[in-house]
């Protein structure tokens, strides 16, 4: 990494901050524009109690002042405020707890998808048009075209209700197995197909012929010369994949009742837990922005022709 690349990364981080600020602003005002509020419930509370609550959380001030206060707290104290629904807990703590589970789910799913996808893709490419290739292609086509909520429901019926092999509750021991499988199947299938086609493309390139003409052994050609080149498109998919995993986990955590940030996000919206909505949105947005940056930098590492600027 020379100074030019470092500058690039700093520039991108600056842009990432800008993106997150835009997300904060838009979410904040849209959230308040939506009818309803955190203290409305079937059980009507008195006018004075409502006013007291609003005063306590600073919601009696004009919206723009609230917005400025919120930004100031984040920037100066990294304070996301208290949760309005889970009494006595700070948003940052709830997110921290949720992240622990969600990170496990997301990282394992991503690694699984990458490893299995690349290996299956390479196998399919090297056994092109044979039976192994055809089986892989049929299965991956099915996985690519199936949304995760259907996949999750099917797995739930099969493994939890029929076979009774795995728990259906994400918080139980081994409860993350099914969510991980559900979450990784789509990117895994996608990476398999991507690796297969780019591997086939690379194997037909002139420089592979050059390597053969040099007398390089077949295995070394595939894992040395071909693999590095065929991973380039896979790495460009890295960013979108992580974005998928982040958003996908929202659905999957809901299906399997995983106590993660995705579920916290959904319930905070249902509850109109304003500080909680803001907190989860910021974290998810920051995650996606940073992951895209990581994927762009990785791209440069694998392909020397790419200039970061």
């Amino acid at each position, binding site marked *: 990494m020379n100074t030019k690349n470092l500058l690039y990364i700093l520039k991108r981080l600056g842009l990432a901050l800008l993106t997150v600020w835009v997300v904060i602003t838009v979410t904040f005002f849209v959230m308040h524009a939506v009818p309803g509020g955190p203290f409305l419930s079937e059980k009507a509370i008195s006018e004075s109690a409502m006013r007291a609550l609003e005063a306590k959380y600073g919601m009696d001030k004009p919206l723009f002042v609230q917005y400025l206060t919120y930004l100031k707290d984040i920037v100066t104290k990294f304070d996301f405020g208290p949760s309005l629904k889970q009494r006595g807990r700070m948003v940052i703590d709830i997110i921290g707890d949720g992240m622990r589970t969600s990170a496990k789910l997301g990282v394992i799913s991503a690694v699984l998808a990458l490893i299995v996808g690349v290996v299956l893709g390479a196998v399919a490419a090297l056994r092109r048009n044979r039976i192994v290739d055809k089986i892989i292609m049929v299965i991956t086509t099915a996985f690519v075209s199936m949304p995760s909520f259907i996949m999750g429901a099917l797995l739930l019926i099969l493994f939890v209700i029929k076979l009774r092999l795995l728990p259906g509750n994400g918080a139980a021991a081994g409860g993350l197995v099914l969510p991980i499988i559900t979450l990784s199947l789509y990117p895994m299938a996608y990476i398999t197909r991507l690796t297969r086609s780019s591997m086939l493309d690379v194997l037909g*390139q002139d420089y592979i012929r*050059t390597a053969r*003409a040099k*007398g*390089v052994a077949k295995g070394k050609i595939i894992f040395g*010369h071909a693999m590095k080149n065929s991973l380039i498109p896979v790495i460009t998919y890295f960013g979108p994949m992580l974005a998928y995993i982040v958003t996908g986990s929202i659905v999957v955590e809901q299906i399997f009742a995983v106590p993660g940030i995705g579920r916290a996000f959904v319930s905070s919206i249902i509850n109109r837990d304003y500080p909680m909505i803001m907190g989860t949105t910021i974290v998810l947005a920051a995650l996606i922005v940073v992951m895209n940056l990581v994927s762009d930098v990785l791209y440069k590492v*694998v392909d*020397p*022709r790419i200039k970061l600027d």
Partner: protein
Amino acid sequence: MSLLSVKDLHTSFFTDAGEVRAVNGVSFELERGKILGIVGESGSGKSVTAYSIMQILAETGRIVGGSIKLDGQELVGAGEKVMRTVRGNRISIIFQDPMTSLNPTYTIGHQLIEAILLHTDRDKKQAYDRAVEMLRLVNVNEPERRMKQYPHEFSGGMRQRVMIAMALACEPDILIADEPTTALDVTIQAQILELMQSLHHARSGRRGAAVRRDHRDVRRLHLRAGDGGRDLLRAPPRLHARPAALDPERRERRTEAAADHGHADRPFEHAEGLSLCAALRRRDEDLHPRALRAAAGRPNAHGVVLAERARRGRIRKGGRERMSEQNNTPLVDIRHLKEYFYISTGPFTTKPLKAVDDVSFTIRRGETLGLVGESGCGKTTVGRTVLQLYKPTAGEIWYDGKQIKTAKDLKEFRTKATMVFQDPYSSLNPRMTVSDIIAEPLDVHHLCKTKEERRDRVLELMQYVGLNSEHASRYAHEFSGGQRQRIGIARSLAVNPEFIVCDEPVSALDVSIQAQVINMFGDLQDKLGLTYLFIAHDLLVVRHISDRIAVMYLGKMVELADADEIYNHPLHPYSRSLISAVPVPDPKIARANRRIALKGDIPSPLNAPSGCPFRTRCPHATEACAEAMPELKEVSAGHFVACHRTAELSD
């Protein structure tokens, strides 16, 4: 015993459509220290022969018969393990396209060292030293720095040098060169050929087979032409001997080799092979009478016709006649044409790429102006800007005494001036029938009132260009490259134009097809009184068809003169080197012309040198050349040169 002996080699590809026999019984012997040339048109099986020897055929290809013996050891059926010790070690190969033959994700050093470590006992440090030594041998400057770079940081010529270094790193017995210069620019071709000659010379133990499509460069030693994988032509090296700069002993060896083959008195055995030679031959005394007879009536005899026409100067004289019928006012008058493209160099900064920088010329009615130069010199941009496919950055375009200014002028201009494009494969819409493609200009300009009129016009146009009118309802992919270019020409003729810009119309075609198509341009000019701006990088092609020739370098016009004048007395150092790089099939002439190999690569037009753009590569450059761009001055009647040192150099 010969070093390499190929007997009755058969190689086939097994595709979904069935077996494709690419090589059909080829036999040859290659002796230590000799050079063997293999020529033939694309699809004739040259490269497949080479890949068969190395056994690096594509997955679907297989050697189905015959024998390949290296020093007596049979290679066919020897297995991967044996072949891996042969490849890169005893037999090496340089490929056609250096741009794609190096792995883009590894450094040059890594790729060189890999080859050395595979076949020698050297450790990593020694392999590194050897790699640096090899780069130095093929004249790569600063080899230590270059080792750390990736292929995309090298130009085409430099990459081909790296390929050569890689091929020679393990001291192979045989070097196969598979069209090693086809993908390169003319002056870079000259450098690479020179390098290969000197390497061969320096190590007389080295031997090689050169595979070339275009046999002008196989003056070295020409053995056979392939067609559908059969040997067709065995010509003695006498006809195609390389230029004399070599020692007499070598010449003797060549003559012996010719005698061995026993064909010295029968240079041509097949018209297919003949058309290749004839298409390129400029002097009819080179043509064996027997060969002429053999060629008569054959479909590929056009080449002979071309040679004949060129010899008698019919094309050129025809041009003069055509011109003298008209008054001498120019039909096309281009004044100070500039075309800049703005390339972004940062978020807020752009830099002009001066593709065409102040170019002026005129073309008289009925004349053909040839425009030559290497890639990136701006010749194609000139063609497109003249027709205003690009809006000129500055300058005036006058046509038939009127300046093209308004949209109305332009619309009218477009019915008189059309274009033939370089690539007949991508310039025809695959979703349209031939008749729709040809009729499109008619439709655009509403030139046909009725359907019958449109159909008759299409059939007439197809007849002009020698296409079977029954094929009007077919699609472009059903035609060969030469036929597609005829479709493109028919399209350009549809509006009955006076002026046609031909942008490298034959460079994508095989040599013998090139001759047919060029001939057709000549015939159409005679018949229809057309005026051409003929753009090409191939000087031989331009010479056949042009009345005058202009040479461009980095967006500037450096020389402009009559075709004969520029060939016989080129004045600009760049024109001289270009013309010296034109291979001459006749050894008598070739011996007299020493090839002038230019140093270095063509600079990027983004960072053109100050003053004279050619000074960085010019053998005669002085300090004055860096200061000012020389003007295009008339040195003798009709001969313009832009060089500060014309006066001193012309003696």
